[in-house]
Structure formats: structure tokens, C-alpha cells
């Protein structure tokens, strides 16, 4: 689905990604772990196409297309979704209006007709129920006055509505209490199919107890320094990141 080849990127003058290689296939869940400042969020922002990040080398191929040629919204239309670490507030725009606009703009981008109002409504009901959200969420201003947990849940709600091919969850577990974590992770698991893939970016093992990865990669200093199965996450939890730092000193 996505092939990242020797990807290098910087923010302003700082080199952050120094040659990332990663391939994700449909149906797979990949976890990207690593200490603070290792480049985890940069990687997710570069995939999503944020302007402040300058790609200085390498390539990203998404279903046979050069992703780096596309605008952020075009990437979204192709099925890339980023669950933000810090979701943005948009005062006065309700969750339902926002998601309706997002869905219909994406459909337009793919040459499809707007979704029927009835279908949209039914889908919103279904997905709010899936994430155990009260329907009153839908008429609140997007992320305005939301608690940390509500913001993250709202991200996963949008993911459920947009049904992306590749979902990148950037530190979705931060700010979540254990109940919210269970619900959010449960939602992600239920949305899993043989055709979509998930990239979970996290600092801790905790989330991976709920969303079981097929592969775990350790990012350090702009490179993937270790890859393995789920057992790698446990090893990391036990030994701490100092282990990685020492190995790569």
C-alpha cells in the first residue's frame, strides 16, 4: 500500500528524518515507537503533506502514485488519514457540519456525488454509537472546549466516518484515561479490514495492549533502528529507550 524509501526531511534548518524505509501492506498494523524527538510526528506530518516539513530526499509511493506530488487534501482523497496529536479547534463549526464537508469534499475529489443526507445521518449515528459517544457531540463546535479524551475520540470518529485506507494515529493514547483508551482502541479494531492499514505512533506499550500490531519499528534519531514483531514493544517497555540509545550511541 505504502512504500517509504530512504525518506529524508527537515523542519527549517533541522534535519529530522535521515532515511526512513518502511513498507505497509493492506490489513497490517504497524507500530512506530521511539523516544521524544526521534522523528515520529515528523514522519506522520510528512506523509500527510504538511507544508512546514521539507522533504529533502527519498520517496513515498502510495498505491503506485508518488505521494509527494500531491496536496494534503488530495492525499486525504486517496485515503490517507492522520489522527492529530493535538487536534485543532474550529469555533462555530459543528462536528457534524465539519465531517459532512470533509466527506463530500473527499467524494468530490474522487469524482463522486455528495452523500445523501439520510445516509450521512445514519452513518453518523452508527459511528457515534461505535465509539460510545453521546449524539450531542455532533452539534458541538469542533474540538472547542473538548477535554483531551474527547478530542481523541472525535479524531477516531472522523476516521470511522471517512473510512481511510491508511490511518496514522499520532500519539492517540496521550491524554486518554484507561476507559477512553479501551473505547478508542476498540473502535480502531472494529474498523479494521483486510483492505486498510493502520500506523500507530506511540511512546508507550500501553496502547499496543489494545491495538495489536503486526510489526513494531523503533525510530531513533531520524532512522528506524529496529524492527520486529509485537514482542519488540514488550522488550522496549522492559529495557526502556536507554537500551536503544546505548545501542545507537
Amino acid at each position, binding site marked *: 500500500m505504502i512504500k517509504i524509501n530512504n525518506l529524508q526531511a527537515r523542519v527549517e534548518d533541522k534535519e529530522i528524518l535521515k532515511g526512513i524505509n518502511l513498507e505497509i501492506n493492506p490489513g497490517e498494523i504497524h507500530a512506530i515507537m521511539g523516544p521524544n524527538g526521534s522523528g515520529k510526528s515528523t514522519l506522520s506530518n510528512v506523509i*500527510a*503533506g*504538511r*507544508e*512546514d516539513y521539507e522533504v529533502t530526499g527519498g520517496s513515498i509511493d502510495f498505491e503506485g502514485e508518488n505521494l509527494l506530488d500531491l*496536496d*494534503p*487534501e488530495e*492525499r*486525504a*482523497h486517496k485515503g490517507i*488519514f*492522520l489522527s*492529530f496529536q493535538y*487536534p*485543532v*479547534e*474550529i*469555533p*462555530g*463549526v459543528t462536528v457534524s*457540519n*465539519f*465531517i459532512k*464537508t*470533509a*466527506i*463530500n*469534499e*473527499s467524494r*468530490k*475529489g474522487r469524482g463522486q456525488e*455528495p452523500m445523501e443526507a439520510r445516509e450521512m445521518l445514519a452513518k453518523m449515528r452508527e459511528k457515534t454509537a461505535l465509539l460510545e459517544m453521546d449524539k450531542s457531540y455532533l452539534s458541538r*463546535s*469542533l474540538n472547542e472546549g473538548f477535554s483531551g479524551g474527547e478530542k481523541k475520540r472525535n479524531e477516531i470518529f*472522523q476516521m470511522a466516518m*471517512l473510512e481511510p485506507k491508511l490511518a496514522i494515529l499520532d500519539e492517540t493514547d496521550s491524554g486518554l484515561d484507561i476507559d477512553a483508551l479501551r473505547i478508542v482502541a476498540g473502535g480502531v479494531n472494529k474498523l479494521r479490514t483486510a483492505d486498510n492499514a493502520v500506523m500507530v505512533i506511540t511512546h508507550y506499550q500501553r496502547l499496543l495492549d489494545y491495538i495489536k500490531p503486526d510489526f513494531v519499528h523503533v525510530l531513533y534519531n531520524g532512522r528506524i533502528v529496529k524492527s520486529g514483531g509485537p514482542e519488540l514493544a514488550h522488550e522496549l517497555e522492559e529495557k526502556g529507550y536507554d537500551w536503544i540509545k546505548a545501542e545507537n550511541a
Partner: protein
Amino acid sequence: MSDEILDEITASDYKYGFTTAIESDTVPPGLNEDVIRLISEKKNEPQWMLDWRLDAYKTWLEMEEPEWPNVTYTKPDFQAVSYYSAPKQKKELGSLDEVDPELLRTFERLGISLDEQKLLSGVAMDVVVDSVSVATTFKKTLAEKGIIFCSMSEAIQEHSELVRKHLGTVVPKRDNFYAALNSAVFTDGSFCYIPKGVRCPMELSTYFRINEANTGQFERTLVIADQGSYVSYLEGCTAPSRDENQLHAAVVELVAMDDAEIKYSTVQNWYPGDAEGKGGVFNFVTKRGICERNAKISWTQVETGSAVTWKYPSCILKGDNSIGEFYSVAVTNKYQQADTGTKMIHLGKNTKSTIISKGISAGKSHNSYRGLVRVGARAENARNFSQCDSLLMGDQCGAHTFPYIEAQHPTAQIEHEATTSKIGEDQIFYCNQRGIGTEEAIALIVNGYCKDVLNQLPMEFAVEAQKLLEISLEGSVG
């Protein structure tokens, strides 16, 4: 709907920039007593009206054009303006079929087909093209309730006593330079009277349209809501593209008697000038309402057009327990300048006022909020809440806030909140990531920002206003 908006955004600059080839009966430029006599004579006015105009003219001659607003422009040459222009249609029209087909086409291009309006929307329209009302609809339905809704010219003929009693009571002739000028030379406008205890069954709507090159527009509107009545009045306007600056100096007076309520909504979209700041309408308007006991006046405005705007829809809260509201969205782009806000004058006891102002500045424009809250010496327990927000787009525009507070009673409660923000790249990227392109993202964010004001508009107006906001801000973020 978003398809249409996209088309419009990507299409031409000013959608309504065309002129209609209607033969006009225009008085040569210039202003003196004879011109005023001529206007009055052409309109077959009673002597008292002429005397009133002449008195206003004498007052005006002694006044000076205000310079305190935060705007700069070349002052109009008042002798270069033609003060009267009427489409040449002398005979009375019984139905729309008799209206000049060219004129009807103009309405259609503006999206206000009268037929459709009549049949579908239930909105009564009093259409003003170049100062003379051409078509008035729904008159009969309204007449059954005793509601008078007609052109000012007709009101002067048919309801002379009502006009004479109220005209100039809210905005006196000598109120300000432009109000005095308007009083001297106004050619038409709308008049509305709602009898005691009557709730007007439909939104009353007037479309103003400036259509004659070099013709100043001096509408005069008077809305009287008698005791315990209710009316919602809509005013919307568009004007054709012009090179010369066009002067527009309207006066609107609202009278809300005991227990009455008037809701007055405006969507203003006059030609703002071109991308270099050339041309555009000067919009120097005096709007004011007076509230008697338990009365309420609510002003809602969406201002997107005009090169220079100078406008403060105000409320005099004379009666005890009366309520004044002002909801405003003012958008400036390119080289537009707006100095707009309100005055809430609390005179009665337990009077309340609310001000919600949302300014949006883009391009090289300047947008000022100027508002006065005055609590008089007898206004016990007066309350005001003001919220003035400014949104900046780009780094070459300006937003200014000039709040004035004068409290003469110790029980007054006055709250003022103000914020200034920029549309964040974070917000735009967030929308982009969800598949929403940058232009649509801005439209979404701006509409959200203005929601508290747009919600005050009647449904059909709210949709139009949203579209206007989007079109006005086209290309304002690179």
C-alpha cells in the same frame, strides 16, 4: 451547494457588475434649492414636504463632512452628482407583465425573479431601482392585516399624516452631514407601518440597486411598529460595476412603540472597487431606531461590499425594559475600508443591549469597529454586553476597535469583550488533511466565526450571506 460556490469563487471578480439599458429620466448634476423644488415637484409632494427638504438643505449647507472616521477617501463633489433619476415608466402598473422586460431580466440576473419570489418564498418585495419603486408585491395580503408596505413616495401621498408625524423623529434633519443631505434630496425608499397588535405574517424585503452612472442614492426608510406589533424587515443590495465612486447616503428610521418588536436585517454587497482600489460605492448611512416601553429592536447586518463604509445602526432605549441588539459581520478585502458599529443609548430603566460584532479583514483593507454604549442618568439597572472580534487574513490588512463607554448611573452593568485572531495554518492544514481544500476551509472557518451573527438572519438570507462571505474572501489567503 458547494459546487455553486466553487464556481462562483473561481469565476469573475464582482458577480453583479453589469448595467441595465433602461431609459432614465435624470436631472442634470448639481444641487441647489431649484433642484430640490424640482425633485419635490416631480414627485408631486405636498408643501410641508418641500418645506422640510428646504430646511434640511439650509442646515446641510452649514455643516461639514465628518472627518473622525478611520477611513480615507476623496470627498465627493456634491455638485457633480445628479440628484434624481427615475426609470421612465409613468403609468401605474397593475401586474408584473407590464414591467419593462429589460428590468425583469435584471432582477433575474440578480437571482430575484419577482415571479418566483411571489410564488415560492412568500417574501413581499418593494424593489427600488434608481430611487423609484417599480414593483410592489403582496400588498393586498398585507393590506388585509392593515399593514402598509409601500414606497416612501407613495406613503407621502397616501399616508401623509403618518409620515409627517414620524419622519425625522429618530434621525433629525440636522443629525449629521449625510443625514441632512439625505433629508434634502431623498427620492424614494420604503415605508412600513404595522398596526397595533399585528404580527406581520411574512418577512418584508427590499432590494435596493444603484443602476444609473453618477446617480447618488438617497433612500429614506421609515418603519413604524405600533404597540404590541412585530415585523421582520430585510434589506439587501447589489450594484453594477462603476469606475467613478458612487455616493450612497441612506437614512433608516425605526419606531418601535410600546411592546413592539422590529428585526431589521441587511445584506450589503455594493461594488467594492477593483483590485487596485479604484471605484466602488461610498456607503455613508445613518440607521437608528427608538424603543418605547418593553420594545425591542434588533439590527443584523452582513456588510461585504462598498469601497468605504460609515455606518452605525443604533438604538435609543427610551422606554423602560426596552431591548436593543446589534449583530454585525463586516468583511473588508482588497482596498476596502469600513468604520462601522453601533450606538446603544440607554435612557429607560432596566434597559438591555447586546452587541456582537465580527470583523474580517483581508487584502490591504481596514476594518474598524466603533461603538458607543451610553447609560443615562435615569437608566437604572441598565445592562450591556459587547463582544467585538476581529479576524485577520494575511499581513497587510488592519483591524481596529474603538469602544466608547459613558455610564451616568451607578447600577449600570457593562461588559466588553474583544478578541483578535488570525486564521491559523494549523486550522487550514487540519481541514486539508480531512480532504477540504484551502478555499473551502477558509469559507468553513469564516462561517463558523460569524455563526452567532448569521444565525440571527432569516433562513433564506443566511444562505445568501454565507455565499457572499465566501465570494468576498476569494483568493485572500495565498
